[in-house]
C-alpha cells in the first residue's frame, strides 16, 4: 500500500537520459509477447479441448493415451511448442511484474534469479520428456 508520503520522491530522481544507456532487448521481448500471446491463445484452447472436452475428458488421459498421441511427431511438436511459448511468455510476464514492483535491487536480483532457475529446470525437464519419451516402457 502506497501512502501519501511515499507518493513524492524524497530526493532528486535519476531522470531518463539519451546518453548513457545500453541498448535494450525490451523491443524484442515486447514483440515476442505479442506473437506468443496470439499463438498461445490457439495452442491452449486446442490443448484444453483435447485434454478436457473430447470423449470422457481428463479421465481418459493415461500413459497409453499419451503414447498413442506422441506416436505422431506433429503432436509432439505441438506439445513442445506449447511448453516453450507458455514458459517463456509466463516468465517474461513475471519478470516485468518483478521489475515494476520489487524496488530493492538485491531482492529483485534474487527473485528474478529464482524465477530464471525455475524456468530453466521446467524447460529442461519438459524438453527431456518430449525428446526421450519411450512408449515401450508402458504396461
Amino acid at each position, binding site marked *: 500500500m502506497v501512502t501519501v508520503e511515499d507518493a*513524492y*520522491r524524497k530526493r532528486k530522481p535519476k531522470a531518463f537520459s539519451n546518453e548513457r544507456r545500453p541498448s535494450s532487448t*525490451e*523491443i524484442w521481448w515486447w514483440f515476442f509477447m505479442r506473437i506468443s500471446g496470439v499463438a498461445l491463445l490457439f495452442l491452449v484452447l486446442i490443448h484444453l479441448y483435447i485434454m478436457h472436452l473430447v470423449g470422457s475428458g481428463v479421465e481418459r488421459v493415461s500413459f497409453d493415451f499419451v503414447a498413442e498421441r506422441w506416436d505422431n511427431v506433429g503432436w509432439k511438436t505441438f506439445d513442445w511448442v506449447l511448453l516453450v511459448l507458455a514458459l517463456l511468455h509466463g516468465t517474461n510476464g513475471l519478470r516485468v511484474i518483478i521489475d515494476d514492483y520489487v524496488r530493492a535491487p538485491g531482492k529483485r536480483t534474487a527473485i528474478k534469479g529464482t524465477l530464471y532457475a525455475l524456468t530453466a529446470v521446467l524447460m529442461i525437464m519438459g524438453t527431456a520428456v518430449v525428446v526421450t519419451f519411450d512408449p515401450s516402457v508402458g504396461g
Partner: protein
Amino acid sequence: MDVKLRLLRFNPESDDKPHFENYEVEADPMDRLLDCLHLVKWQKDSSLALRRSCAHGVCGSDAMVVNGVNALACKVLIKDLEQPIVVEPIRGLPLIRDFIVDMEPFFAGYRAVKPWLIVDESQHEPERERLQSPKERERFDDTTKCILCAACTTSCPIFWSDEEYVGPAAIVNAHRFIFDSRDQGSRERLEILSQRDGVFKCRTAFNCTAACPRGIKVTQAIQEVKRAALFQSF
C-alpha cells in the same frame, strides 16, 4: 455555495511530511477549482503555494491530483466535483512545497527525445518554407496539442515505480516529430526510445490517456511509437 476543500499541505521548513488541511470558501458552482484555491490563498492563508500562469488551460502550470485524478485546476468546475474536494500535488516527482513539485526530472525525459525539428541542412538548404500536405500534417495532429503539464506522466504507475522511465509526455512529444514528414531525426529518436526505461517500459495502463486535459490519445501515440521502433529494427 459553500465549497469544502481538503488540501495536502507541505512546508519543507516546518513539516516532516505532507498533511491535509480543511478550508471552506464561498464560490459559484460554475467557478473553477483554481478560483477556489485563489480564494484560499488570497483570503484565508497566503502561505498556500501553487503554480498557475494563464489560468485558461493552455500554459499547463496547474496540474494537480483532484479527488484522486490528475487534472488542471483551471479547467475543472466546482459543480463537477464531489465535496470535500481533495487536492494533492502531482505524484512521482520531488515535492518542493504545497502544490509545487520539482519538474526537472520530467523535463529531462522531454529533452532526451530531442523534441525539435531535425533536418540535414547540407541536403536541405532552407530557401523557402518546408511544405507539408494537410494529410501529412494530420498524421501527428493529436500530439501537437501537448502543453507539458505533466498530468499524464505523473499519473503513470510505471513512472511512480521507475524514476528513470522516460514517461508518456516525452513519448507524445517524440511522436509529434517522428511522424512529421519534414523531420529527419526519427531513426535517432526511435533508437533513444528503444533503450532501457524507454517506450517499451509502458504497460498500457491508460492512466495517461484518462489524465490528459487536452484529450490527447496518449496510449495510442505510445503504441504507434513502439510499432515504429519495431519496424525500424527489422
